[in-house]
């Protein structure tokens, strides 16, 4: 990038050219990672580990969706797991009571969670920082309480049985991977377009973005709705994979996991959260039998990364590559 050296680092960071290049590099790295993931079933046939990887992909979608909202737009919602739960219950209830086929239910889940996200996003438009976090946290807890207490409808904590979709675990593996790649491409196209610049401009300085003519109300709400729809999609897929929907999908701990993955991978980077989702989830399953301190270590990493390297593992890797390239 020739022009970038002429302007200050702060200006070049939000410069269209550089931002696009950065996103493209991240997009390619993410595609390479997904290609590696696609090859895994050739060597691993153990259904347990395939299941672990499928759940990792579920979290990768959620982390990617939350990253779009928090990392790129600066809206720190604490309800990502709740939208997955809403999506799961949408298709679950439709299937359980009306026999709606899973594929149609998943479409309905995307629409419903997207609409709820739109409404919530519109309502919290003026709230920033701690106020936004508290409002979304209470929204999350209210939704979970409703799901677990409406026993007549949702069967509460026992969970709602729903129809499966595929018989083969490898089939599920590639379905989730396909969904993840499609969302990755969509997010990449969104971020590479003007919309991506608008979102990041809002994150960096909302007032300045408004002065520069960005429709802040529209884009903030849109980011909320898109993120919610993607999370609802993941939740709906997961519902048919597990053949069970429980309020546990919306626990604060689940949100904690999503936030951890995003922060460890690198907020506001396209590839980081996706890769970190695999890393965190697979490692935590793998290390479960040895010691089991992994969750505390991951949480410590969240604090350390938040404190010292906002761009997480991705930022560290990039710095290492740059140093190596210069030497």
């Amino acid at each position, binding site marked *: 990038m020739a022009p970038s050296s002429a302007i200050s680092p702060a200006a070049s960071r939000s410069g269209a050219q550089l931002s696009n290049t950065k996103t493209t590099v991240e997009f390619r790295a993410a595609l390479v990672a997904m290609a590696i993931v696609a090859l895994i079933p050739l060597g691993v046939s153990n259904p347990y580990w395939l299941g672990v990887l499928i759940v990792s992909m579920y979290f990768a979608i959620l982390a990617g969706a939350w990253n779009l909202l928090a990392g790129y737009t600066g809206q720190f919602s604490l309800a990502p797991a709740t939208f997955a739960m809403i999506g799961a219950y949408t298709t679950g209830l439709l299937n359980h009571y009306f026999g709606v086929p899973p594929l149609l239910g998943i479409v309905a889940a995307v629409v419903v969670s997207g609409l709820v996200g739109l409404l919530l996003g519109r309502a919290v438009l003026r709230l920033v920082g701690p106020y936004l976090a508290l409002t979304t946290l209470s929204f999350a807890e209210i939704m979970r*309480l409703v799901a677990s207490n409406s026993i007549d409808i949702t069967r509460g904590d026992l969970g709602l049985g729903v129809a499966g979709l595929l018989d083969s675990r490898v089939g599920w593996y590639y379905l989730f991977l396909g969904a993840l790649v499609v969302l990755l491409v969509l997010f990449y196209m969104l971020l590479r377009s003007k919309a991506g610049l608008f979102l990041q401009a809002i994150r960096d300085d909302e007032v300045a973005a408004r002065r520069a003519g960005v429709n802040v109300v529209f884009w903030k709400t849109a980011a909320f709705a898109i993120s919610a729809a993607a999370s609802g999609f993941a939740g709906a897929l997961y519902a048919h994979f597990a053949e069970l929907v429980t309020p546990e999908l919306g626990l604060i701990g689940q949100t904690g996991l999503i936030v951890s993955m995003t922060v460890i991978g690198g907020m506001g980077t396209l590839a980081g959260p996706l890769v970190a989702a695999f890393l965190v989830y697979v490692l935590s399953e793998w290390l479960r039998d040895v010691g089991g301190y992994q969750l505390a270590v991951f949480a410590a990493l969240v604090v350390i990364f938040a404190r010292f390297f906002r761009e997480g593992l991705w930022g560290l890797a990039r710095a290492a590559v740059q140093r190596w390239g210069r030497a």
Partner: protein
Amino acid sequence: MSGIDVDLAVNGLITGLFYALMAIGLSLIFGILKIVNFAHGEFYMVGAYAYTLIALALGVPVWIALPLAFVVGALLGWLTERTLMRPLYAGYTSWGLMRDEYAVIVTFGLSLFLINLVDKVIGPYAYRGPPLVETSRVVLGPVLISGHRLLAAGIAIAVIAVTAALIKWSFWGQQIRAVSQNRLGASLAGIDTAKASVIVFMLSGGLAAFAGALLSPVINASPDVGIFPAIKSYIIVVLGGMGSVPGAIIASLFLGVIESFGAVYISFQYRDAFGLILLMLFLLFRPQGLFGEKGREV
């Protein structure tokens, strides 16, 4: 008012007292740094464990274990302030202008860390703390109450009164209020704002841990026991006006009574939802709370 109503009111007020111990600290932190500490419930959890383990494992008398729990919470608060909060106002985060977001993530991460650490080090089983007195029930007219709860309520009143008086009249209390009204103005007037933050965090951690210790014979401490008390204190701080100590005390008692009546007359399953709905409504329509005032800018 029938007998059961008096019983509900008294028990609601007592619950409110314990909420107040939690909420005062949270409110002070908001006042001074304009952040919400999402690890506040874990200070409470650590206090419950500290009291229980010091009393049971080390065999220390409960009346010594109780203040020690406060000390443990205060130390944790001090450590949090020095390592994670100082960058907020000393200006060396890697987050630039996103101070609020940094604070959300770093305290949320701290909360996850403490929960998972305690879960592994001490174990996921519930611990029951030793009660301060063995009297199982005291009858006061229509009100039936356990001896421990009554005594704990009395101690809570004393601690809240001392804290409120210190904030109102002591030298450091006045400085803390000055910093929360206007950080820049206070520092221009020669107040050490960093020291004020340290004191607030230590006080806040200590009070939350003290609440956990007082309630440990009732709550059966487990690693995630702090989540709900923390959510209650968020509700209270928003209702009472973020940063206002009298507001926090009044809102605590109010929430305790509302929940006590709501659980009986409206819905037991949704008793935890009333406050959450209030929280959302307040944040959306009246973010300054019932008693909050806007800080003055220089």
